[in-house]
């Protein structure tokens, strides 16, 4: 099939053009061997079905990062077929620096077509570009577009068959670009726009940091409220009133041997403790994780489309740099206060392995997930706020300490922040929905099978009595070190299935305040929850996964042990 490659600098509206060109059926995938994702869709050109690829954003074809390496590889693969076409999306407000990529693309052997996007914004800034003259100089079709309103998209589609190999400009590149700019661009007086004022407010620390805190708090609140309500009032009832009776009926009708029955439905019908492949299996991803993820992805996509994320990264870089990570890690870390699953999925934006490991450790240890925090608060608060303060500040400083140590131990340096701050842009709500759906689809495709696999594994271990064996064998010394009574072992062994519930179960065990504090801290740290564990396994290499889990476990043990001897 013929391919159309959409290429261009980051933040030029490439993805919006992509959405305008393609229909509803699009696929996102990772480029083999990398964590760089790209999107693929289809369109019709003169009745012929053509593949459209949204290539990762690149400033240059002389790669300076992984995304650009991938872009170059995709371009090279595509240039093996003569019928393939490249559309370069250019930011009309930054014509000069976008032309670097244009000159590089012209020297490659593929038909080229240029979409001069953000045409309206350029006009607003007093920039006039004579696109016909540009067309004449470059020797390829140039179409002005405003992707967010759809202006010029029809013309762009019509011009695709007219794409051609342009003129190869061989002079020194800045001279060539300078000549082109002199010929085609006129800049008149520009106004200080509202977007620029907003930019100043949100990026200067005096106003930007308080605003950032408010925005983060709002996200946190919305994810929590939205997620909780979706679970309690929509998904849990659907599961318990519709799905569960139906599936139980079907399975009992088939009446498989007892062994299979227990694997499929579990020993009890309680979806959280039965470990049944068809009960606990779907309950965890669809009823517990999905609602949080949905709200969170919706908000993340919104902030991303508006252009807030680079500003947030810049504001927080000052603090995070000292812990050995980029400002860009701020997004996953903050997400981790809500739910660890989306937080870990968000670490994909990080470039180096070192950064990913440190960020993962910070995500896992800095605070419990939101449902778990809520449980700890309700459980400990009656004994005094000072104990709550103790628990949360211990976790916070422990995570800082661990990440600081990791930044010293792991090889590599902390990279300096270097990123473009794009102007604020109006979001398009239909695209927002599409993006959220794509991300949820990726979660369903990647994480759900892992969670099912985990539930299956545990039910097998349980059936063969291996879990009981571990509990007896490892439980005794653990409980001794932590000063916890024997009845807590059950909670510890099954607690990683859903960590907030495990904390709630502590209230039934008649523990002393000291034991409660130690148990809450230990249960927060000792292991990631089941969903988190498998997502972590997907995002990290096996060795790094092991590192993080071991660090978590021993930090939990260490803190618990210490408190057992210090607290009275």
């Amino acid at each position, binding site marked *: 099939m013929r391919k159309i490659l959409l290429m261009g*600098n980051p933040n030029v509206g490439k993805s919006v053009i992509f959405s305008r060109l393609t229909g509803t059926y699009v696929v996102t995938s990772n480029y083999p061997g990398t964590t760089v994702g790209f999107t693929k869709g289809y369109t019709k050109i003169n009745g012929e079905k053509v593949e459209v690829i949204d290539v990762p954003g690149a*400033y*240059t074809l*002389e790669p*300076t990062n992984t995304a650009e390496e991938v872009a170059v590889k995709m371009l090279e693969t595509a240039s093996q077929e003569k019928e393939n076409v490249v559309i370069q999306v250019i930011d009309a*407000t*930054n014509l*000069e*620096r976008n032309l*670097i*990529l244009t000159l590089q693309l012209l020297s490659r052997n593929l038909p080229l077509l240029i979409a001069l996007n953000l045409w309206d914004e350029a006009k607003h*800034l007093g*920039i006039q570009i004579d696109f016909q003259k540009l067309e004449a100089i470059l020797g390829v079709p140039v179409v002005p577009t405003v992707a967010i309103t759809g202006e010029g998209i029809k013309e762009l589609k019509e011009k695709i068959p007219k794409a051609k190999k342009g003129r190869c400009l061989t002079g020194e590149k*800045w001279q060539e670009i300078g000549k082109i700019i002199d010929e085609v661009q006129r800049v008149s007086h520009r106004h200080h726009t509202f977007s620029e004022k907003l*930019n*100043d407010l949100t*990026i*200067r*620390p005096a106003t930007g940091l308080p605003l950032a805190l408010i925005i983060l708090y709002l996200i946190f609140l919305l994810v929590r409220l939205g997620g909780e309500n979706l679970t309690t009032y929509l998904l849990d009832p659907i599961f318990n009133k519709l799905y569960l009776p139906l599936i139980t009926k079907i399975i009992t009708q088939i009446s498989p041997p007892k062994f299979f029955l227990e694997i499929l439905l579990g020993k009890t019908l309680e979806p959280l403790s039965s470990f049944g492949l068809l009960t606990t299996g779907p309950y965890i991803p669809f009823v517990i994780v999905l609602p949080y993820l949905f709200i969170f992805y919706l908000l993340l996509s919104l902030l991303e489309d508006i252009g807030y994320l*680079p500003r947030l*990264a*810049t*504001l927080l*870089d*000052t603090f995070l*740099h000292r812990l050995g990570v980029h*400002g860009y890690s701020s997004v996953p870390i903050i997400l981790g206060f809500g739910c660890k699953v989306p937080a870990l999925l968000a670490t994909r934006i990080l470039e180096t392995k070192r950064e990913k490991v440190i960020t993962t450790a910070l995500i896992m240890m800095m605070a419990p997930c939101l449902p778990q925090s809520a449980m700890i608060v309700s459980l400990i608060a009656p004994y005094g706020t000072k104990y709550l303060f103790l628990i949360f500040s211990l976790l916070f400083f422990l995570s800082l300490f661990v990440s600081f140590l990791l930044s010293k131990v792991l090889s590599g340096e902390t990279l*300096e*922040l*270097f*990123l*473009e*701050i*794009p*102007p604020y842009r109006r979001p398009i709500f239909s695209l927002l929905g599409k993006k959220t759906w794509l991300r949820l689809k990726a979660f369903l495709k990647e994480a759900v099978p892992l969670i099912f696999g985990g539930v299956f594994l545990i039910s097998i271990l349980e059936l063969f009595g291996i879990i009981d064996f571990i509990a007896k064998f490892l439980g005794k010394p653990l409980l001794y070190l932590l000063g916890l009574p024997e009845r807590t072992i059950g909670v510890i062994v099954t607690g990683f299935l859903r960590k907030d519930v495990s904390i709630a179960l502590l209230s039934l065990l008649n523990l002393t305040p000291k034991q409660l504090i130690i148990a809450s801290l230990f249960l927060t740290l000792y292991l990631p929850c089941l969903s988190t564990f498998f997502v972590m396994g997907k995002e990290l290499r096996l060795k790094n996964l092991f590192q993080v889990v071991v660090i978590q476990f021993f930090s939990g043990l260490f803190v618990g042990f210490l408190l057992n001897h210090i607290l009275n």
Partner: protein
Amino acid sequence: MRKIDLTQMKENEKGIIVELLGGCGFLRRLEVLGIRKGKEVKKISKQLLGGPVIIQVGNTQVALGCGMAKKIIVEIKNKEKKD
């Protein structure tokens, strides 16, 4: 005229880039964002405690770490000459 680096500039101050210290890779990364010798740069903001510096070149705003900012030397037209 005085020559200073980006970290020493004040907010909203403008200058012309006269020198870029640093290796080829660094220069290339700057260049593709339109940051090169002879260009006018405006400082938008700085962050606390030696955090990143935000500058504008043309219509592009860029945040860059303090270490990088120190490698970009600008010349500022100033009424009171210092020497």
